[in-house]
């Protein structure tokens, strides 16, 4: 993606409003989830696939006695499944009283970023991505896409099937 030159931004400015993001990687792309929405981060051990389920749903997980719906962020972003069979990481989210686990390639550190410095999505970004992204943060060496958690989890079973 061709973008504006990365400027020295990020954690420098102290005064303005800051948000903490849990960073995750999917296909080498850095993405951030507002920490307020993240319940926990866990390693996926055993997953039950659900036949006939919409493609975005990878399966069901048992997270400490609770059944959690695993959503593949890769598939949600229109990417192929990763073939590397490393340990699978998931970010625990909650939406409308239901527990979800967002499957990602890796979970990184927690970043404190200035809300004001978030820039709108580049105009030519993939439509599917635009829908899930709230904006872009320019980090020193990378770009971080701020995920809209509600949008990520907003895909209808029925509508898709119909």
């Amino acid at each position, binding site marked *: 993606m061709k973008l504006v030159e990365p400027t020295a931004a990020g954690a420098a400015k102290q005064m303005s409003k800051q948000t903490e993001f849990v960073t995750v990687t999917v296909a080498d792309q850095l993405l951030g989830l507002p920490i307020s929405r993240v319940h926990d981060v866990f390693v996926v051990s*055993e997953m*039950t696939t*659900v*036949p006939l389920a919409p493609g975005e749903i990878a399966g*069901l*997980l048992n997270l400490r*006695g609770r059944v959690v719906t695993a959503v593949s962020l890769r598939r949600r972003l229109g990417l192929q499944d990763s073939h590397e069979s490393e340990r699978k990481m998931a970010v625990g989210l909650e939406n409308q009283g*239901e527990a979800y686990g967002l499957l990602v390639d890796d979970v990184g550190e927690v970043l404190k970023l200035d809300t004001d410095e978030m820039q709108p999505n580049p105009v030519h970004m993939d439509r599917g991505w635009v829908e899930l992204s709230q904006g872009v943060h320019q980090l020193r060496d990378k770009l971080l896409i701020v995920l809209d958690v509600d949008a990520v989890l907003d895909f*209808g*079973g029925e509508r898709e099937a119909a």
Partner: protein
Amino acid sequence: MDDLLVEFLTETNEHLETVDVEMVRFEQDPNNEAILSNIFRLVHTIKGTCGFLGLPRLEALAHAAETLMGKFRDGMPVTTPAVSLILTTLDRIKEILGELERHGAEPQGSDQDLIEMLDRMAAQEVSAVEAAPPSPPAKPQAAGTLVYQVLERELKPGEVSLDELERAFQEAPGPEKATTSGSLTYQVLERALKPGEVSLDELERAFREAPGPAPLVVSKPAPEKAEAAQAVAAPQPAKKAPDPSSEGAEGSEGVTGKVQTIRVSVDTLEHLMTMVSELVLTRNQLLEIARRSSEDHGYKVPLQRLSQVTAELQDGVMKTRMQPIGNAWQKLPRVVRDLSNELSKKIELVMQGADTELDRQVLEVIKDPLTHMVRNSADHGIESPAERKAAGKPEKGTIRLNAYHEGGSITIEIADDGKGLNLAAIRKKAVERGVATDAEVERLSDAQIAKFIFHPGFSTAEKVTSVSGRGVGMDVVKTNIELIGGTVDIRSEQGRGTTFTIKIPLTLAIVAALIVSSKDQRFAIPQVAVSELVRVSPSSEHSIERINGTPILRLRDRLLPIVPLSKVMGLPGGEDVNHGFVVVTQVAQQRFGILVDGVFHTEEIVVKPMSSKLRHIQLFSGNTILGDGAVVLIIDPNGLARMVGTESNSNEFQTDTGLEQTVVAADEMTSLLVFRGGGESLKAVPLSLVTRLEEIDASTIEWSSGRPVVQYRGRLMPLVSCDEELAIKRQGMQSLLVFSDGDVSMGLAVAEIVDIVEDKLDIELLAERSDLVGSAVVRGRTTEIVNVAHYLPMVLETWARKDKGKGPERPLLLVDSSTFFRDMLVPVLRAAGYRVHTASTAQEAARLLSGGLQVDIIVTDLELSGHSGLALVASLRADPNHARTPVIAMTVKSDPQQIALARKLRVSEIVSKIDRKGLLSALAEFSGVLEEAA
């Protein structure tokens, strides 16, 4: 105030329910004072509270009703219209309460109509009773004042609960005429209200103290009673007085009962239930770990204890969800009473096992179906008193409700001693509605026929009443009950009554499930739906066969459709449907087998709802976590049945029995009627050729010039024995297969009709016998296929005579790949006056025609082996010699595309291959046309 209102609504609604029931009881037993005073007290309570809360409409209504009831208590005769009027008033009160609940305020409107009627009724009764000698009310009247005081004093020490408040209010209206005592009550009230809330303990104590003195007081005035009784026209306050004492006594019982219970919101209970479910799962996981490790680290004993406590806790919490089924029955006495009035029938409702408990969720679901079924019994089942008398039964019909636990389920029976189901009418209706064909209906057992009433839009009521007979209902009842994994069964005996038996699981939250695997993934199937397990492999006794690719299992001579689980789920991997286990599943009347790879064990599972993202998958009803921590999906047998049903777009899963065989209309399947002749061997004839099955009394067989005939539907029908060994009976019952063509019929006498089966026909021709087409293996047994054509000449006189009138035979070409069908059709066509040429393939037909064969008409099967029938027609149309020859096409499956194509090729008529009549009428049309042309 809002809280107070909510509380008031809940309580009042409960009270009203009770009043409904009590009122009906009272009507039947007007001398029971206990019931009356109970009703009186309840209405009084309602009235009092309404006044307090400032609900004038309710208060006025309750007051009017109370006045009338007061007259009852004074000894007025209890009449049905009066009771009806009070019940109507209660209904109106309920309506207003409903509004109140929705909008928080009493709706506008006037109840003057009802109040006037109530007043008029009350006035009437007064005059009526005044005329009559004063019946002794036998109430301790003068004593009342005493009690009153005692009660007031006792009340002071304890604080006052709403209950007491209500009681206080009950007393309050009394003084309307006796102001002195009234003002006193109010004082008590005002003082009591201030302290506010009351602890349960205190409440209990207060109540324990309150009723205590009451009996003492009552016993004291006993001698005064006699005196008081003489003063019948005692002043009002005196009359009211006994209330508190009796209420005090009754109230105390009620209260001690009430103290044990507190209202807890359903949400709290649900939450508790969820938590316990979690606990159970965690326990299971722990146990699993403990099982796996052989070493005891000293935690096994506490784990055992934990396990035990968890089980008890689970039990306890489950109990909080349980409610007596009587709650669902509460409305029924009223319903039955109203119905019996409306229908002028005498009906008694007997309820047994009302305290049988079941999950409230389940209770909610069955409430309406139960009411509907009781209505049905009252309307359809129970006869009018006159009819009952004529039938030698007591005038009063009985509807009996019975509930009891049985294993992990609860059984509810609804039995009436009415006239029973009219099976003949149901049979007729089933045919009319196209639910089943004549032939099917003939061979279904009574029990199977009875089940037809569960079909949508099925009602046999001769006239539609306001109650039932509109053809909605029983199917909804069934659907509702099945929704919660229950079943309904009917047992009916002509003239003796009908019994419906409902079986439902106790709870929906925890179910026993069978854990199975398909393609290395585990699934849970609710045990209630599983009727048996069958292991299948190609070499064993049970092997899966295929009909046109559709797997089928022969199980005890029935065909069981098989649904490979992996296929329904679209799981990848080669489809090896020959090995594995078949889970025989019964969903209502549908029976089918789910083919799975492995079966593990049964486990109690806690049903967790599916995520909203997955809820649209009808195959699964939920998910659960097993003891080893794995998440498994719970298969919904209903959903599976529906899915497969819509997939194949045919009625593949037919009703339980009988019809099952007619199921698969796959290409090569033929319905065969299997019967026995004189010998041991089985014989069969295609069902499509048989018009009816009859059983006639052999004494009605007449012998005209040595040939047996029988009068059948106003005509003489010749009879032929199906083989030489079998002599037509001279006495007893003779089974007949009737073959008809127009008005001509023939009866084929057989020894016994064995069965109707659906099977492939693979005939090895037997040349040396003309009465047989050949023999085939039907259901694993060698069976002789009877050639109907052989018998026709035996009764030739009629058939031939019919033909003669038609002049010369017309040439016809019959093209059909199946030897069997050709052999079947040729005699039929000959009998219809055609000279028949046959061809087995399109090529052969083309060769015949190009070789100079001229025919008037061509009858061809569209599904010919090799070339299709349509290709043949297309090539004919290209040939100027045959471009105009009429063609009648026969097909087994009607495919719109095929039909369109056929029309394009000017195929004159398309008939179903098994519709012999249709073919003949199509031919008849042509012969008419041809004759005109000639």
